[in-house]
C-alpha cells in the first residue's frame, strides 16, 4: 500500500511538474514503420521473465537446476551459446537461492568469457556476483548477471563479432525457455503459458541465424540450433496448450544439451 501511494505520488508530481503529453493518437498505423530494422528489436533480459515468474508462485527451483558441466569446449560459436545458457542458469540458481551454485556460475561465466577473449570485460561483474551471493543479495546477483550479459555482448560487438553476441542472447533465451516451459508444464495456467507468447522474438533469432556468415552457419551446432528454432516456431504461433508447452520443453532441452556437449548429445 505504501509503495502504491509512493508510485501515485511520483506520477502525480511528474504530471504536475511536467504536464501531460499532447494526447497521443489512440491508434497508429504500424505499416508506417515497415523498415523496422533487426537492430531495432529489443531483446528482453532474462530478469524480465524471472521477475514475472516470481509473481506466479513458488516452483521447485532447485529441481530446475542443472549439474555444472562446461568441460566440453568447441568453436567460439559453441562457447557463445554456452555462455548465454550459463548466465540464464545463474537466474535459476538465484531463484533457488543456491549460493554455492551461483558462485560456481560466476566462475563459469568468467572461464567461458576467457574462451572468447572478453574475460576482462566481465571480471568486475563476476567478482560482484560472488560478493552479492555471499551477502545473499539476490536482487544484486540478478543485476550483475544481466550486466554480465550486456557487457559480454557489447565487448563482442566492439571486437566486430556481433554474430557471437547474438548467439549469447540466443543461448540465454533457449535455456530460459527450457526452464519456463518446465515450470509452466508442471503447473499449467493460462498466465504462465502466456509468457511463451514470443513469436516475434523467435522470428528475430531465426533471422539473426539466417543472416550469419556461411562460416558460422556451417557449424554443426548452429545448424542444430537453427533446426530446433524451426521446430518451435509453429508451436509459438498458435494457442499455447499443455501439449505445446511440453513439446517446446523437449526441443529446448535437447538443444541446451547439444550446446553443453558441442553437438555430441
Amino acid at each position: 500500500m505504501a509503495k502504491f501511494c509512493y508510485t501515485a505520488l511520483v506520477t502525480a508530481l511528474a504530471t504536475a511538474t511536467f504536464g501531460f503529453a499532447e494526447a497521443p493518437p489512440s491508434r497508429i498505423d504500424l505499416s508506417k514503420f515497415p523498415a523496422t530494422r533487426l537492430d531495432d528489436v529489443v531483446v528482453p533480459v532474462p530478469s524480465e521473465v524471472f521477475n514475472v515468474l516470481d509473481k506466479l508462485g513458488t516452483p521447485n527451483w532447485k529441481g530446475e537446476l542443472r549439474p555444472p558441466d562446461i568441460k566440453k569446449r568447441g568453436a567460439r560459436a559453441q562457447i557463445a551459446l554456452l555462455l548465454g545458457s550459463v548466465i540464464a542458469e545463474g537466474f535459476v540458481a538465484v531463484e533457488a537461492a543456491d549460493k554455492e551454485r551461483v558462485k560456481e556460475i560466476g566462475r563459469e561465466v568468467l572461464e567461458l568469457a576467457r574462451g572468447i577473449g572478453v574475460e576482462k570485460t566481465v571480471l568486475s561483474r563476476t567478482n560482484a556476483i560472488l560478493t552479492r551471493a555471499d551477502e545473499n543479495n539476490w536482487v544484486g546477483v540478478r543485476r550483475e548477471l544481466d550486466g554480465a550479459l550486456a557487457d559480454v555482448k557489447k565487448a563482442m560487438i566492439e571486437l566486430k563479432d556481433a554474430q557471437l553476441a547474438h548467439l549469447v542472447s540466443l543461448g540465454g533465451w533457449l535455456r530460459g525457455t527450457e526452464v519456463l516451459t518446465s515450470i509452466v508444464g508442471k503447473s499449467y495456467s493460462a498466465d504462465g503459458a502466456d509468457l511463451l507468447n514470443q513469436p516475434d522474438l523467435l522470428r528475430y533469432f531465426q533471422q539473426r541465424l539466417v543472416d550469419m556468415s556461411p562460416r558460422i552457419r556451417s557449424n554443426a551446432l548452429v545448424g542444430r540450433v537453427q533446426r530446433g528454432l524451426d521446430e518451435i516456431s509453429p508451436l509459438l504461433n498458435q494457442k499455447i496448450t499443455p501439449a505445446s508447452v511440453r513439446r517446446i520443453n523437449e526441443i529446448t532441452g535437447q538443444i541446451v544439451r547439444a550446446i553443453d556437449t558441442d553437438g555430441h548429445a
Partner: protein
Amino acid sequence: MRRFGAVVLASIPLVLASAFATVDDAISRALEAIDPYVKEGYVVRDDQWGGDLGLKEQKAFPHTLFKGNDYWFCMGTDVDNARIAIHVYDSRGKLVEKTSWQKGRFAAAEVIAPATGTYYIVAEVNSSPQERTSWAMVYAYK
C-alpha cells in the same frame, strides 16, 4: 536507431568527440527522467537505445513485454528547447500505455503489459531548434 553501447563504440571515429558528448548527454537526460522510478523500486536495464530524428519524425522499435511486469520507458535529449515524446502501442497499433508525460527534453510512458507479446515503443521529436535531434531511451521494470 542505434544501440549506443554497441554501435556507437564500434562505428563512430574517436575524432568525433563532440558526437560522443551529445550521445552521453542524451543518455544522461534519459537516466535523469527514469531516476524517480528507480527510487520506487523499478530495475533499470543497463542498456540504452537512441539515435537522431528530424522534426515530427517517429521511430518505432518492437519489444516483447511480459504480462505481469510494469514498465517505464523514459526518453531524453540534449537539445535545449526540444520537445520529445514516447508512447507504447500493441501489435495492432492500439495505444496501451497507462500514463505518459513530457516536458521538453524529457518524456516517459508507463505500460503494464495486458498480455505477453510484441509492443511498439514509438519515439518522436515534436519540436526542436535543430534539424536533427539526438535522443536516448532507457527503460525499467518491476
